[in-house]
Protein backbone atom coordinates (compact mmCIF):
# COMPACT_ATOMS: atom_id res chain seq x y z
CA UNK A 1 0.00 0.00 0.00
CA UNK A 2 2.63 2.64 0.89
CA UNK A 3 4.51 1.75 -2.33
CA UNK A 4 1.35 2.19 -4.40
CA UNK A 5 0.62 5.51 -2.74
CA UNK A 6 4.15 6.76 -3.40
CA UNK A 7 3.84 5.70 -7.06
CA UNK A 8 0.49 7.46 -7.39
CA UNK A 9 1.69 10.64 -5.70
CA UNK A 10 4.71 10.64 -8.01
CA UNK A 11 2.34 10.59 -11.01
CA UNK A 12 0.30 13.46 -9.57
CA UNK A 13 3.50 15.42 -8.89
CA UNK A 14 4.62 14.84 -12.47
CA UNK A 15 1.29 16.23 -13.72
CA UNK A 16 1.54 19.31 -11.48
CA UNK A 17 5.18 19.91 -12.47
CA UNK A 18 4.21 19.47 -16.12
CA UNK A 19 1.46 22.08 -15.77
CA UNK A 20 3.88 24.49 -14.01
CA UNK A 21 6.44 23.92 -16.75
CA UNK A 22 3.80 24.71 -19.33
CA UNK A 23 2.88 27.92 -17.57
CA UNK A 24 6.54 28.99 -17.38
CA UNK A 25 7.11 28.23 -21.06
CA UNK A 26 3.99 30.23 -21.89
CA UNK A 27 5.21 33.16 -19.78
CA UNK A 28 8.50 33.16 -21.64
CA UNK A 29 6.79 33.55 -25.05
CA UNK A 30 5.75 36.81 -26.79
CA UNK A 31 3.54 39.29 -24.87
CA UNK A 32 -0.19 38.70 -25.28
CA UNK A 33 -2.21 40.66 -27.84
CA UNK A 34 -4.93 43.06 -26.63
CA UNK A 35 -7.57 40.67 -28.06
CA UNK A 36 -6.09 37.78 -26.07
CA UNK A 37 -6.12 39.84 -22.90
CA UNK A 38 -9.71 40.93 -23.58
CA UNK A 39 -10.71 37.27 -23.93
CA UNK A 40 -8.93 36.40 -20.64
CA UNK A 41 -6.59 34.23 -22.70
CA UNK A 42 -3.11 35.75 -22.24
CA UNK A 43 -1.40 32.53 -23.37
CA UNK A 44 -3.44 32.30 -26.57
CA UNK A 45 -0.47 31.92 -28.92
CA UNK A 46 0.91 29.09 -26.81
CA UNK A 47 -2.55 27.55 -26.36
CA UNK A 48 -3.09 27.50 -30.11
CA UNK A 49 0.15 25.53 -30.52
CA UNK A 50 -0.97 23.15 -27.80
CA UNK A 51 -4.32 22.64 -29.55
CA UNK A 52 -2.48 21.73 -32.76
CA UNK A 53 -0.31 19.30 -30.78
CA UNK A 54 -3.41 17.72 -29.19
CA UNK A 55 -5.02 17.50 -32.64
CA UNK A 56 -2.01 15.55 -33.92
CA UNK A 57 -2.10 13.21 -30.93
CA UNK A 58 -5.80 12.68 -31.63
CA UNK A 59 -5.29 12.10 -35.33
CA UNK A 60 -2.33 9.74 -35.18
CA UNK A 61 -2.83 7.96 -31.86
CA UNK A 62 -6.20 8.48 -30.21
CA UNK A 63 -8.64 8.19 -33.12
CA UNK A 64 -7.01 5.02 -34.57
CA UNK A 65 -7.04 3.52 -31.07
CA UNK A 66 -10.70 4.46 -30.64
CA UNK A 67 -11.35 2.85 -34.06
CA UNK A 68 -9.74 -0.40 -32.89
CA UNK A 69 -11.74 -0.24 -29.65
CA UNK A 70 -15.00 0.24 -31.57
CA UNK A 71 -14.05 -2.58 -33.98
CA UNK A 72 -13.37 -5.17 -31.28
CA UNK A 73 -15.86 -4.13 -28.61
CA UNK A 74 -19.55 -4.10 -29.53
CA UNK A 75 -22.07 -1.47 -28.46
CA UNK A 76 -23.21 -3.49 -25.43
CA UNK A 77 -19.62 -3.96 -24.26
CA UNK A 78 -18.83 -0.28 -24.70
CA UNK A 79 -21.96 0.66 -22.75
CA UNK A 80 -20.80 -1.67 -19.97
CA UNK A 81 -17.36 -0.02 -19.92
CA UNK A 82 -19.01 3.43 -19.90
CA UNK A 83 -21.28 2.44 -17.01
CA UNK A 84 -18.41 0.84 -15.07
CA UNK A 85 -16.19 3.93 -15.40
CA UNK A 86 -19.10 6.20 -14.51
CA UNK A 87 -19.77 4.13 -11.39
CA UNK A 88 -16.12 4.39 -10.32
CA UNK A 89 -16.33 8.18 -10.45
CA UNK A 90 -19.47 8.33 -8.26
CA UNK A 91 -17.63 8.49 -4.88
CA UNK A 92 -15.70 11.56 -6.10
CA UNK A 93 -18.90 13.09 -7.43
CA UNK A 94 -20.58 12.40 -4.08
CA UNK A 95 -17.74 14.13 -2.17
CA UNK A 96 -18.02 17.18 -4.44
CA UNK A 97 -21.83 17.22 -4.17
CA UNK A 98 -21.51 17.38 -0.41
CA UNK A 99 -18.68 19.96 -0.46
CA UNK A 100 -21.03 22.17 -2.49
CA UNK A 101 -23.89 21.65 -0.06
CA UNK A 102 -25.95 19.84 -2.71
CA UNK A 103 -27.41 17.27 -0.35
CA UNK A 104 -30.16 15.96 -2.65
CA UNK A 105 -27.72 15.52 -5.52
CA UNK A 106 -25.32 13.83 -3.11
CA UNK A 107 -28.14 11.48 -2.17
CA UNK A 108 -28.65 10.67 -5.85
CA UNK A 109 -24.93 9.92 -6.32
CA UNK A 110 -24.83 7.71 -3.22
CA UNK A 111 -28.00 5.88 -4.24
CA UNK A 112 -26.68 5.33 -7.77
CA UNK A 113 -23.40 3.96 -6.41
CA UNK A 114 -25.09 1.54 -4.00
CA UNK A 115 -27.67 0.31 -6.54
CA UNK A 116 -25.35 0.03 -9.53
CA UNK A 117 -22.49 -1.55 -7.58
CA UNK A 118 -24.79 -4.27 -6.28
CA UNK A 119 -27.71 -4.85 -8.64
CA UNK A 120 -25.73 -3.47 -11.59
CA UNK A 121 -22.95 -6.08 -11.12
CA UNK A 122 -20.17 -3.75 -10.06
CA UNK A 123 -21.45 -0.90 -12.20
CA UNK A 124 -21.56 -2.69 -15.57
CA UNK A 125 -25.30 -2.00 -15.73
CA UNK A 126 -27.29 1.05 -14.72
CA UNK A 127 -30.46 -0.13 -12.92
CA UNK A 128 -30.54 3.16 -10.96
CA UNK A 129 -31.56 5.00 -14.11
CA UNK A 130 -34.45 2.57 -14.59
CA UNK A 131 -35.56 3.58 -11.09
CA UNK A 132 -35.49 7.22 -12.17
CA UNK A 133 -32.25 8.10 -10.37
CA UNK A 134 -30.26 9.87 -13.05
CA UNK A 135 -26.56 10.57 -13.01
CA UNK A 136 -24.81 13.93 -13.08
CA UNK A 137 -21.23 15.14 -13.19
CA UNK A 138 -19.40 17.06 -10.47
CA UNK A 139 -15.74 17.80 -9.87
CA UNK A 140 -13.48 19.80 -7.60
CA UNK A 141 -13.09 22.58 -10.19
CA UNK A 142 -16.84 23.17 -9.88
CA UNK A 143 -16.62 22.98 -6.09
CA UNK A 144 -13.93 25.67 -6.08
CA UNK A 145 -16.15 27.83 -8.28
CA UNK A 146 -19.08 27.40 -5.89
CA UNK A 147 -16.72 28.46 -3.10
CA UNK A 148 -16.00 31.65 -5.03
CA UNK A 149 -12.68 30.82 -6.69
CA UNK A 150 -12.30 32.48 -10.10
CA UNK A 151 -11.38 30.44 -13.15
CA UNK A 152 -8.18 32.30 -14.05
CA UNK A 153 -6.82 32.50 -17.59
CA UNK A 154 -7.81 29.99 -20.24
CA UNK A 155 -5.26 27.24 -20.84
CA UNK A 156 -5.05 24.18 -23.06
CA UNK A 157 -3.55 21.22 -21.24
CA UNK A 158 -1.59 18.70 -23.28
CA UNK A 159 -3.76 15.60 -23.93
CA UNK A 160 -6.61 16.89 -21.70
CA UNK A 161 -7.56 19.97 -23.77
CA UNK A 162 -9.40 23.13 -22.62
CA UNK A 163 -9.04 24.11 -18.98
CA UNK A 164 -8.01 26.88 -16.60
CA UNK A 165 -5.86 26.88 -13.45
CA UNK A 166 -8.89 26.32 -11.20
CA UNK A 167 -10.13 23.32 -13.20
CA UNK A 168 -6.61 21.91 -13.66
CA UNK A 169 -6.09 22.05 -9.89
CA UNK A 170 -9.51 20.42 -9.52
CA UNK A 171 -8.48 17.62 -11.85
CA UNK A 172 -5.47 16.77 -9.68
CA UNK A 173 -7.47 17.11 -6.45
CA UNK A 174 -10.17 14.77 -7.75
CA UNK A 175 -7.47 12.15 -8.40
CA UNK A 176 -6.15 12.60 -4.85
CA UNK A 177 -9.55 12.39 -3.13
CA UNK A 178 -10.80 9.51 -5.29
CA UNK A 179 -11.39 6.68 -2.78
CA UNK A 180 -10.62 4.04 -5.40
CA UNK A 181 -7.04 5.31 -5.43
CA UNK A 182 -6.82 4.44 -1.73
CA UNK A 183 -7.61 0.76 -2.31
CA UNK A 184 -4.47 -1.22 -1.50
CA UNK A 185 -3.04 -2.99 -4.52
CA UNK A 186 0.47 -3.86 -5.67
CA UNK A 187 0.47 -2.21 -9.08
CA UNK A 188 -1.66 0.84 -8.46
CA UNK A 189 -0.10 2.79 -11.28
CA UNK A 190 -1.31 0.21 -13.83
CA UNK A 191 -4.82 0.31 -12.44
CA UNK A 192 -4.86 4.12 -12.63
CA UNK A 193 -3.32 4.19 -16.09
CA UNK A 194 -5.73 1.54 -17.39
CA UNK A 195 -8.70 3.37 -15.95
CA UNK A 196 -7.60 6.70 -17.45
CA UNK A 197 -6.91 5.04 -20.79
CA UNK A 198 -10.41 3.57 -21.04
CA UNK A 199 -11.96 6.81 -19.76
CA UNK A 200 -10.13 8.57 -22.57
CA UNK A 201 -11.31 6.03 -25.18
CA UNK A 202 -14.87 6.24 -23.92
CA UNK A 203 -14.91 10.04 -23.93
CA UNK A 204 -13.23 10.39 -27.31
CA UNK A 205 -15.56 7.81 -28.86
CA UNK A 206 -18.65 9.57 -27.53
CA UNK A 207 -17.56 13.08 -28.53
CA UNK A 208 -15.90 12.27 -31.87
CA UNK A 209 -18.84 13.25 -34.11
CA UNK A 210 -19.58 16.42 -32.12
CA UNK A 211 -15.94 17.56 -32.27
CA UNK A 212 -15.79 16.84 -36.01
CA UNK A 213 -18.99 18.86 -36.49
CA UNK A 214 -17.56 21.83 -34.55
CA UNK A 215 -14.33 21.68 -36.56
CA UNK A 216 -16.24 21.65 -39.86
CA UNK A 217 -18.62 24.48 -38.98
CA UNK A 218 -16.24 26.78 -37.12
CA UNK A 219 -14.96 30.06 -38.39
CA UNK A 220 -12.24 29.79 -35.74
CA UNK A 221 -12.12 26.34 -34.13
CA UNK A 222 -9.87 27.47 -31.29
CA UNK A 223 -12.19 30.35 -30.30
CA UNK A 224 -15.24 28.12 -30.70
CA UNK A 225 -13.78 25.52 -28.36
CA UNK A 226 -12.85 28.20 -25.82
CA UNK A 227 -16.36 29.67 -25.88
CA UNK A 228 -18.03 26.25 -25.67
CA UNK A 229 -15.77 25.16 -22.81
CA UNK A 230 -16.58 28.25 -20.77
CA UNK A 231 -20.31 28.07 -21.44
CA UNK A 232 -20.47 24.35 -20.69
CA UNK A 233 -18.49 24.77 -17.46
CA UNK A 234 -20.77 27.63 -16.45
CA UNK A 235 -23.83 25.42 -17.04
CA UNK A 236 -22.23 22.57 -15.08
CA UNK A 237 -21.41 24.87 -12.17
CA UNK A 238 -25.04 26.04 -12.11
CA UNK A 239 -26.03 22.35 -12.21
CA UNK A 240 -28.08 23.01 -15.34
CA UNK A 241 -30.20 25.70 -13.73
CA UNK A 242 -31.20 28.56 -16.03
CA UNK A 243 -28.62 31.26 -16.62
CA UNK A 244 -29.27 34.49 -14.82
CA UNK A 245 -30.84 36.96 -17.21
CA UNK A 246 -28.58 39.77 -16.03
CA UNK A 247 -25.47 37.74 -16.91
CA UNK A 248 -26.35 37.78 -20.62
CA UNK A 249 -25.03 40.62 -22.80
CA UNK A 250 -27.16 43.32 -24.41
CA UNK A 251 -28.14 42.93 -28.04
Amino acid at each position, binding site marked *: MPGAKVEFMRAVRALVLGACGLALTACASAPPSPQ*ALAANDPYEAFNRQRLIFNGKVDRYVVIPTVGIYYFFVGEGGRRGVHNFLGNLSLPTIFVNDMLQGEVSRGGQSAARF*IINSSFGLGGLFDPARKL*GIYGHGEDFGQTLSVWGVGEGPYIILPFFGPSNPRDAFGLVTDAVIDPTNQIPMKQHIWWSAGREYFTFLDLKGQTYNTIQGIQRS*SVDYYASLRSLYRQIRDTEIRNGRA*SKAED*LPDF
Partner: protein
Amino acid sequence: MIKTVLRRNVLALGLVVAGIGLLGATPALAANPAETYVQDNIHKGLDILNNKSLSVEQRRQQFASFLLGLTDMKRIANFTLGQYRRGKDGTPELAAFEAAFQNYAVAVYQSYFAKYAGQTLKVTGSQARSPDDFIVATQLIDPNDRSGQAPLDVDFRVRTDAGKPVVTDFSVAGIWLALEERDQFTSFLGQNNGSIPTLVKHLDDLAKQYRNQ
Protein backbone atom coordinates in the same frame (compact mmCIF):
# COMPACT_ATOMS: atom_id res chain seq x y z
CA MET B 1 -36.73 -4.75 -0.44
CA ILE B 2 -33.61 -2.55 -0.38
CA LYS B 3 -34.62 -1.33 -3.82
CA THR B 4 -38.08 -0.33 -2.61
CA VAL B 5 -36.76 1.44 0.48
CA LEU B 6 -34.13 3.29 -1.51
CA ARG B 7 -36.61 4.27 -4.17
CA ARG B 8 -39.06 5.52 -1.55
CA ASN B 9 -36.35 7.58 0.17
CA VAL B 10 -35.12 9.06 -3.06
CA LEU B 11 -38.67 9.87 -4.17
CA ALA B 12 -39.39 11.49 -0.80
CA LEU B 13 -36.19 13.50 -1.06
CA GLY B 14 -37.13 14.47 -4.59
CA LEU B 15 -40.57 15.69 -3.47
CA VAL B 16 -39.03 17.78 -0.70
CA VAL B 17 -36.56 19.30 -3.14
CA ALA B 18 -39.32 19.94 -5.68
CA GLY B 19 -41.38 21.60 -2.95
CA ILE B 20 -38.48 23.87 -2.02
CA GLY B 21 -38.04 24.67 -5.70
CA LEU B 22 -41.69 25.63 -6.04
CA LEU B 23 -41.55 27.86 -2.98
CA GLY B 24 -38.50 29.61 -4.34
CA ALA B 25 -39.80 30.07 -7.88
CA THR B 26 -41.46 33.26 -9.04
CA PRO B 27 -44.93 32.26 -10.13
CA ALA B 28 -45.77 33.00 -13.78
CA LEU B 29 -49.16 34.73 -13.70
CA ALA B 30 -49.86 34.15 -17.38
CA ALA B 31 -47.94 33.36 -20.54
CA ASN B 32 -46.29 36.58 -21.74
CA PRO B 33 -46.11 37.49 -25.47
CA ALA B 34 -42.60 36.04 -25.73
CA GLU B 35 -43.74 32.64 -24.41
CA THR B 36 -46.76 32.59 -26.68
CA TYR B 37 -44.57 33.53 -29.65
CA VAL B 38 -42.12 30.71 -29.03
CA GLN B 39 -44.85 28.16 -28.36
CA ASP B 40 -46.72 29.13 -31.54
CA ASN B 41 -43.76 29.40 -33.90
CA ILE B 42 -40.92 27.04 -33.13
CA HIS B 43 -42.92 23.92 -33.89
CA LYS B 44 -43.54 25.32 -37.39
CA GLY B 45 -39.80 25.15 -38.05
CA LEU B 46 -39.65 21.60 -36.72
CA ASP B 47 -42.64 20.70 -38.93
CA ILE B 48 -40.84 22.00 -42.04
CA LEU B 49 -37.76 19.94 -41.25
CA ASN B 50 -39.94 16.92 -40.59
CA ASN B 51 -41.97 17.26 -43.80
CA LYS B 52 -40.79 14.35 -45.95
CA SER B 53 -42.97 15.41 -48.90
CA LEU B 54 -40.67 18.40 -49.54
CA SER B 55 -37.56 18.14 -51.70
CA VAL B 56 -34.23 19.10 -50.12
CA GLU B 57 -34.29 22.45 -51.91
CA GLN B 58 -37.95 23.16 -50.98
CA ARG B 59 -37.18 22.35 -47.36
CA ARG B 60 -34.15 24.63 -47.40
CA GLN B 61 -36.16 27.51 -48.88
CA GLN B 62 -39.12 27.09 -46.54
CA PHE B 63 -36.84 26.84 -43.49
CA ALA B 64 -34.90 29.91 -44.64
CA SER B 65 -38.05 32.05 -44.93
CA PHE B 66 -39.34 30.67 -41.61
CA LEU B 67 -36.06 31.51 -39.87
CA LEU B 68 -35.83 34.99 -41.37
CA GLY B 69 -39.39 35.72 -40.22
CA LEU B 70 -38.71 34.42 -36.73
CA THR B 71 -35.39 36.09 -35.96
CA ASP B 72 -33.86 39.54 -36.14
CA MET B 73 -30.94 38.41 -38.27
CA LYS B 74 -29.52 41.89 -38.74
CA ARG B 75 -29.40 42.50 -35.02
CA ILE B 76 -27.71 39.13 -34.42
CA ALA B 77 -25.17 39.77 -37.21
CA ASN B 78 -24.26 43.13 -35.71
CA PHE B 79 -23.94 41.62 -32.25
CA THR B 80 -21.54 38.90 -33.47
CA LEU B 81 -19.06 41.51 -34.75
CA GLY B 82 -18.46 42.73 -31.20
CA GLN B 83 -16.03 45.66 -31.06
CA TYR B 84 -15.37 45.37 -34.82
CA ARG B 85 -18.88 46.73 -35.48
CA ARG B 86 -17.89 50.21 -34.31
CA GLY B 87 -17.72 52.88 -37.00
CA LYS B 88 -19.19 50.63 -39.71
CA ASP B 89 -22.66 52.21 -39.94
CA GLY B 90 -23.93 52.19 -43.51
CA THR B 91 -20.71 50.83 -45.00
CA PRO B 92 -20.80 48.32 -47.90
CA GLU B 93 -18.64 45.88 -45.92
CA LEU B 94 -21.22 45.80 -43.10
CA ALA B 95 -24.02 45.16 -45.62
CA ALA B 96 -21.94 42.37 -47.22
CA PHE B 97 -21.32 40.86 -43.78
CA GLU B 98 -25.03 40.96 -42.87
CA ALA B 99 -25.89 39.14 -46.11
CA ALA B 100 -23.11 36.56 -45.64
CA PHE B 101 -24.10 36.02 -42.00
CA GLN B 102 -27.71 35.42 -43.01
CA ASN B 103 -26.70 32.73 -45.52
CA TYR B 104 -24.35 31.12 -43.04
CA ALA B 105 -26.87 31.21 -40.19
CA VAL B 106 -29.64 29.65 -42.28
CA ALA B 107 -27.33 26.81 -43.35
CA VAL B 108 -25.97 26.23 -39.84
CA TYR B 109 -29.30 26.51 -38.00
CA GLN B 110 -31.04 24.24 -40.51
CA SER B 111 -28.38 21.61 -39.96
CA TYR B 112 -28.67 22.14 -36.21
CA PHE B 113 -32.46 21.96 -35.98
CA ALA B 114 -32.64 19.00 -38.38
CA LYS B 115 -31.23 16.89 -35.54
CA TYR B 116 -34.40 17.60 -33.56
CA ALA B 117 -36.95 17.01 -36.31
CA GLY B 118 -39.83 14.87 -35.04
CA GLN B 119 -39.57 16.23 -31.51
CA THR B 120 -42.07 18.44 -29.75
CA LEU B 121 -41.40 21.63 -27.88
CA LYS B 122 -42.89 22.58 -24.55
CA VAL B 123 -42.57 26.04 -23.02
CA THR B 124 -41.72 25.68 -19.33
CA GLY B 125 -41.44 29.32 -18.26
CA SER B 126 -39.66 32.59 -18.85
CA GLN B 127 -37.71 35.35 -17.13
CA ALA B 128 -37.71 39.00 -18.09
CA ARG B 129 -34.32 40.64 -18.51
CA SER B 130 -36.01 43.98 -19.15
CA PRO B 131 -39.61 44.88 -20.07
CA ASP B 132 -38.92 43.95 -23.72
CA ASP B 133 -36.20 41.30 -23.41
CA PHE B 134 -37.23 37.78 -22.34
CA ILE B 135 -35.60 34.40 -21.94
CA VAL B 136 -38.14 31.71 -22.70
CA ALA B 137 -37.29 28.27 -21.34
CA THR B 138 -38.45 25.23 -23.30
CA GLN B 139 -37.84 21.51 -23.41
CA LEU B 140 -37.53 19.40 -26.53
CA ILE B 141 -39.29 16.12 -26.00
CA ASP B 142 -38.57 13.16 -28.23
CA PRO B 143 -41.68 10.93 -28.28
CA ASN B 144 -39.57 7.98 -29.49
CA ASP B 145 -36.86 8.31 -26.86
CA ARG B 146 -36.35 5.11 -24.87
CA SER B 147 -33.09 6.11 -23.21
CA GLY B 148 -34.73 7.59 -20.14
CA GLN B 149 -32.61 10.73 -20.49
CA ALA B 150 -34.03 14.04 -19.31
CA PRO B 151 -35.50 16.21 -22.12
CA LEU B 152 -33.14 18.70 -23.76
CA ASP B 153 -33.33 22.28 -22.42
CA VAL B 154 -33.56 24.89 -25.17
CA ASP B 155 -33.90 28.57 -24.24
CA PHE B 156 -34.88 31.40 -26.58
CA ARG B 157 -33.98 35.05 -26.15
CA VAL B 158 -36.95 37.05 -27.41
CA ARG B 159 -37.22 40.83 -27.85
CA THR B 160 -40.61 42.48 -28.08
CA ASP B 161 -39.57 46.05 -28.85
CA ALA B 162 -39.66 45.82 -32.65
CA GLY B 163 -43.40 45.85 -33.25
CA LYS B 164 -43.58 42.06 -33.12
CA PRO B 165 -41.55 39.58 -31.06
CA VAL B 166 -38.28 38.38 -32.59
CA VAL B 167 -35.78 35.76 -31.50
CA THR B 168 -32.25 37.12 -31.05
CA ASP B 169 -30.48 34.05 -29.69
CA PHE B 170 -31.12 30.54 -28.49
CA SER B 171 -29.25 28.16 -26.23
CA VAL B 172 -29.10 24.39 -26.29
CA ALA B 173 -28.16 22.77 -22.97
CA GLY B 174 -26.86 26.12 -21.72
CA ILE B 175 -24.79 27.09 -24.79
CA TRP B 176 -25.87 30.39 -26.39
CA LEU B 177 -25.27 30.29 -30.12
CA ALA B 178 -24.86 34.02 -30.85
CA LEU B 179 -22.44 34.34 -27.94
CA GLU B 180 -20.37 31.49 -29.32
CA GLU B 181 -20.46 33.05 -32.81
CA ARG B 182 -19.36 36.43 -31.46
CA ASP B 183 -16.40 34.78 -29.70
CA GLN B 184 -15.41 33.06 -32.94
CA PHE B 185 -15.86 36.04 -35.23
CA THR B 186 -14.04 38.54 -33.03
CA SER B 187 -11.19 36.07 -32.60
CA PHE B 188 -11.05 35.48 -36.38
CA LEU B 189 -11.05 39.22 -37.01
CA GLY B 190 -8.33 39.69 -34.39
CA GLN B 191 -6.18 37.18 -36.29
CA ASN B 192 -6.91 38.88 -39.63
CA ASN B 193 -6.30 42.56 -38.91
CA GLY B 194 -10.02 43.17 -38.40
CA SER B 195 -10.73 42.47 -42.08
CA ILE B 196 -14.50 42.00 -42.44
CA PRO B 197 -14.22 41.05 -46.18
CA THR B 198 -11.96 38.10 -45.15
CA LEU B 199 -14.62 37.00 -42.67
CA VAL B 200 -17.34 37.38 -45.32
CA LYS B 201 -15.42 35.12 -47.71
CA HIS B 202 -14.90 32.55 -44.98
CA LEU B 203 -18.63 32.57 -44.08
CA ASP B 204 -19.56 32.15 -47.77
CA ASP B 205 -17.26 29.13 -48.04
CA LEU B 206 -18.70 27.56 -44.89
CA ALA B 207 -22.30 28.14 -46.05
CA LYS B 208 -21.47 26.44 -49.37
CA GLN B 209 -19.96 23.49 -47.53
CA TYR B 210 -23.12 23.13 -45.43
CA ARG B 211 -25.40 23.27 -48.44
CA ASN B 212 -23.37 20.56 -50.21
CA GLN B 213 -23.54 18.19 -47.24
